Every structure is written in C-alpha cells, then in structure tokens.
C-alpha cells in the first residue's frame, strides 16, 4: 500500500481536529497500520495532552535543522498496547505509531514564526524531507498531519505537502462564508494539483450519550435532532456545505457530551472500545484505509 499523507485542517480553532487525528492515528495503529502523527499546529500544539510522552527533541528543532528524524519521532506504540491490554483484552498489536511533537514553549513558537523567507523555505524543505524520510525509513502506511487552523504559513504548507485534506467543521459553529472562501481559494487551488479534499463534520447533534462504561446502543436506535445553521437542518447543512464547497463528506461524527465535557483530553477510541465515538472513529479509519 502506498503511504497516504492526510492533513486535518479547519477554518477556526476548537473543531476537534486534534482529537480526531489522535484517535484515528491510534486506532489505525491498533488495526495493524504503521502510522506517523505530526503536530504541525505550530502556533498552538496540543498532541502532548493526548499521549503524555516527553520527546527527545521537538519538531521545531528538526525544522530549524537542530535535530535528526529519529530524535524527533517518538515511538508510542506501547501506549496503544497498554490501552489495548487494559481495556480491550488484547495483548499485542501489529501496527506501530510514532509521533512528532511540537513544542508549546513561547520562544520555540517565535523561532519558527520569525524566520525570513529564506529560512522559511529551508524549514519547508526540512518538512518535506521529514515526510520523505518517514515514508522511506519507517515504511509507513499513513502520515497524519495535525495542522494549525485558518490561513497561516504553516497550515498552508502542511496542506500543500499532504495528498488528502480533511476540512474539519464543528456543527453549530460553522462560518459558512469563511468555509466557502477557504474551500474555493485554498482547497480549490490545491485540488487543481491532484490533492483530494473532504469535509469532516464534528459534533453533529442528536447522539448525546450518557456515562462511560454503559452498553451503547446502535446508531440506528438514536434519534437525530435537528440543529439549525442559517436555517438549515443538520443533514441539510451538510448537503448545502458539500454542494457549496464541492467537497464530499468523509464523515459526520456526532456530538458526545461525555467527550466534549471530559476534564482531560484522552484517547477515547482506545479507552472505551465500545463507545459510539470509537465506532465512528473506526468508520473514519476504515474510510482512510480503503477509500483514499
């Protein structure tokens, strides 16, 4: 299988792209795929919160030429294995997961931000080299990139380097005009070069689930409420945006209050294997493996 390079992007922050990217990456590894997850949300990195592992060096160091690939890629397959052993009665997983973490330190962010056009180009060169080295030396099935939201230097570069883009939208908080503009000016430009792009709806209302650990009912048994966006119902809004942006919908993930209001970010897809959110992640992971 050729390596797939997928970028999770959004117009605004707080759409859940990091949660989805982290959970998808972990699930893909659990399913036997070799995955690298890169934190390219250089302005507000947050992957560390999900994996709680201190890297030897940061992606920032690599981009600035102060670290090698193997120093910044943290092997976290054991985290996936621990979860699987503990919560899914399975001892071994065949896949692998590496993460490139981005530093949260203010000065590190400034160092990336404050480059001249030449240093920015050299950082882009290092980033492309990173992707190529990962594909060649780590024999990966997936490179997943968590990007910065909006139209910023590193978000556009991450999109240009990926071959598939997921535009994550949080239902109930969609800036229709902004999304349309993003789709036509950025995604429209990139897809002309052969990049594929999809809409990924998050927190679609109507599936609110109670506490953890209960037996979850099938999706068919839940009732889909209608949240209005500019006068549209949920599925109408999905269709409308899909039509307006000329992008297909890869997934529409319902809103689960227990995840949304959880006090700590964690890998729900591994911690609660029977949670409907996990099922949704599995559907998305399968789509990533088979449809792209």
């Amino acid at each position: 299988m050729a390596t797939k390079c997928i970028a999770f992007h959004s117009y605004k922050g707080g759409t859940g792209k990091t949660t989805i990217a982290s959970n998808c990456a972990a699930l893909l590894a659990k399913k036997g795929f070799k995955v690298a997850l890169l934190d390219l949300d250089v302005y507000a990195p947050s992957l560390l919160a999900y994996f709680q592992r201190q890297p030897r060096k940061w992606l920032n160091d690599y981009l600035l030429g102060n670290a090698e690939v193997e120093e910044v890629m943290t092997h976290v397959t054991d985290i996936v294995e621990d979860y699987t052993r503990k919560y899914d009665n399975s001892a071994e997983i065949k896949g692998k997961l590496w993460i490139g973490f981005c530093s949260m330190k203010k000065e590190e962010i400034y160092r990336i931000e404050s480059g001249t056009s030449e240093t920015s180009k050299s950082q882009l060169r290092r980033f492309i080299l990173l992707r190529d080295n990962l594909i060649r030396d780590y024999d990966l099935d997936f490179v997943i990139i968590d990007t910065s939201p909006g139209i910023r230097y590193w978000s556009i570069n991450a999109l240009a380097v990926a071959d598939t883009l997921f535009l994550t939208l949080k239902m109930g908080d969609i800036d229709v005009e902004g999304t349309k503009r993003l789709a036509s000016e950025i995604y429209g430009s990139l897809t002309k070069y052969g990049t594929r792009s999809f809409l990924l709806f998050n927190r679609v209302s109507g599936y609110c689930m109670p506490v953890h650990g209960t037996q979850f009912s099938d999706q068919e048994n839940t009732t889909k409420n209608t949240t209005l966006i500019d006068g549209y119902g949920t599925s109408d809004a999905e269709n409308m945006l899909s039509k307006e942006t000329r992008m297909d919908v890869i997934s529409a993930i319902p809103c689960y209050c227990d995840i949304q209001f959880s006090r700590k970010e964690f890998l729900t897809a591994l911690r609660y294997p029977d949670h409907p959110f996990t099922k949704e992640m599995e559907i998305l992971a399968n789509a990533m493996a088979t449809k792209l």
Partner: protein
Amino acid sequence: MAKPRDIQVISNHEVFKTMSRVISNLNGRLDCYFDAKNLPLIVKILSANDQKIMELKSKRGRVRCITEIKRENLPHCKEIMKNFELYHTSCLTGSFLIADGQEYAGYLMDANGREKLLHITNPSFVDSQQFLFDAMIDRALPARQRITEIGRGTEEEFMETIRDSFRVKSIVLDLIGSAIYEIAILFSTKNSFLIAEREGILEKIGRISKQGVKVKILVMQDETVKEISNTKLKMPHQNIQVNYLQQLLPTKITTFIVDQTKSLTVEVNDDTRETLQEAIGLATYSNSESTVFSNVSMFESLWIQSELDKQNKARHAYFQLFKGFKLKDEVYNRRWSFDREKEEAAKE
C-alpha cells in the same frame, strides 16, 4: 578637526562626474540612500557604471540601496534591483552614497534646481554616516516584501474564471511582462512546455529574465524538454532555473505565479494539440492572497521535492556504482594510517 581637503562642495555639471568617479573607484562596498524624487539620478549614475557594479558583485562586493518604494517609481526600483540589494523606508528625505566606508557623497538640489554635491572623506564623519546607514537598513523592509505589499494593496482582490483561450494567452504574456522580481511556472506535462515554446512564451520569459527577474520553471522530465530548456533557457539566461518533475502530477495543469502577488492556473484539456488555444480549458486568474499563497506553497513543495528526487537519484546511482563494496563498513571501520602507527608504537 576636518582638514579643508576632506570636504569639497561640487556644483552642477561636475556632480554627475564626481559621483561616477566615486563609483568607478569602488573596491568592495557601495551603500546608497536616495529619496524617491532623486531616484532617477541614481539610476542614471548606476547605468553609466554598469560594468563597475557587475565587476564589484563578481568579486563578492556588496551594493545596497535604501529608498522609498512606491507604485510610481517601481520601474526605477526594478532597474536598481538588477544589481542592488534594495530596501524600502517610508518618508525618506535626503540622498547620499558611501563608497567603501571611506567616501561620502551627499546630493542636494536647491529651489532653483541647482545641483550640489558634498564630497566628504573625513573618516569620523563617514563612519557616523555609515553607522546611520547600517541602522536604517536594519529597520528597512526588503524590496520584495514591499513590492508584494504594493501589488496587493493597490488592486481590488479578484478571482476570475476564464474560458476564452485567447484571453488566457494575453494574460499569460501580460503577467510575465509585469514581473518585477520573480516568476514561477509549473508545466505539469511535456507538451504544455512545448506549446509554450511554440507560442513564444519561453522567449518572453528569456527577455524578462534579462531585466533581472528571477525565473523558476518546473516541468515534467523529458529529453526534448531538457534539450530545449538547456539551449533556450538555462544556457543563455543566468536568471532562469529549471527543475524536473520525476513523477506525473495527477492533474494536467500549468501555473504562472508572478512576484507572489498574482497567479494564473490553466487546466490543460487536450495535451496533444498544437496551439495553446486548442489545448487549454478553464483558467483561474487571481490576486487573492490565500489563492496565490496556496499556489506558491504548492509550487515550492514540488520544487523542493524535485530537488530531493534529483539528490536521491544521484545517491542511488552512487550506491549502484559501488554495489557490493560494503560502503558503510568501510566508512566506519577505516583505520587511519596514523592510528595504526600509534598502535604499533604502543606494542613496541
């Protein structure tokens, strides 16, 4: 205290001559600070000393200029950018140049249009002016950035879809002609490059590159394409760089990006056709920052990728050449002769 011969006041027709003489005696560095109204003068002086400036640059000399870059003086700025590192500062008044950090020439024009030049070689005065110039340049904006700002700020943002292939050709030629410092072009197929050659687009690119515009062309790898790009672009024009795509892009597209302010992406409908008009489909022409930036980012990514592919190819060829030689072992286990000598000496 300055000696009388350290300061000279030169008038009228001697001004141009003295400035030219200062430049013709240069050894390593020229720093110019010219306000917008006096820019034509410095352009004239520099044109007259073109050879000297080129010679200085070839010896790794440094030629820098600060001025106020405006839309109206862009042609002059473009001229200066051919040989100078140009910077922008707003509301600049006064004009002077410093040669090799040793000679200062301050230009003045009175209300009656009489020209005067203050020629000063007093070391402490020249040092203080040099310090002022260096401080100014630290705060100035590089010309490219300023020109991009002008390009974006003076026009309404637009994104236009064009179906008329004759108009597309005319936009391509106008766009190339309007370039001030940089053109990036992607031909995703061999034929679109060949069509561009037949349509005179490559010739136009060659002409504009002679005016100091840097051109990057990315094209599908092919022997005919290589030959044409070597003979018509790379060899005769030092400002043109051509890189080759090793893998086909999923779509057939030709992209023109000028000065990072405008982009034109042209879909290639029928790549087998002879003329541009017959071959192309829809085109998108825009100066929208996000569209242009996406195209720039994609172009840069493909450009870098093509360089990495070239390096990989060379590396692969190298390893093929030494196949079976266990290169790694040789590198890491090599025992240098002086090491052996030391070991042998220790044994004895």
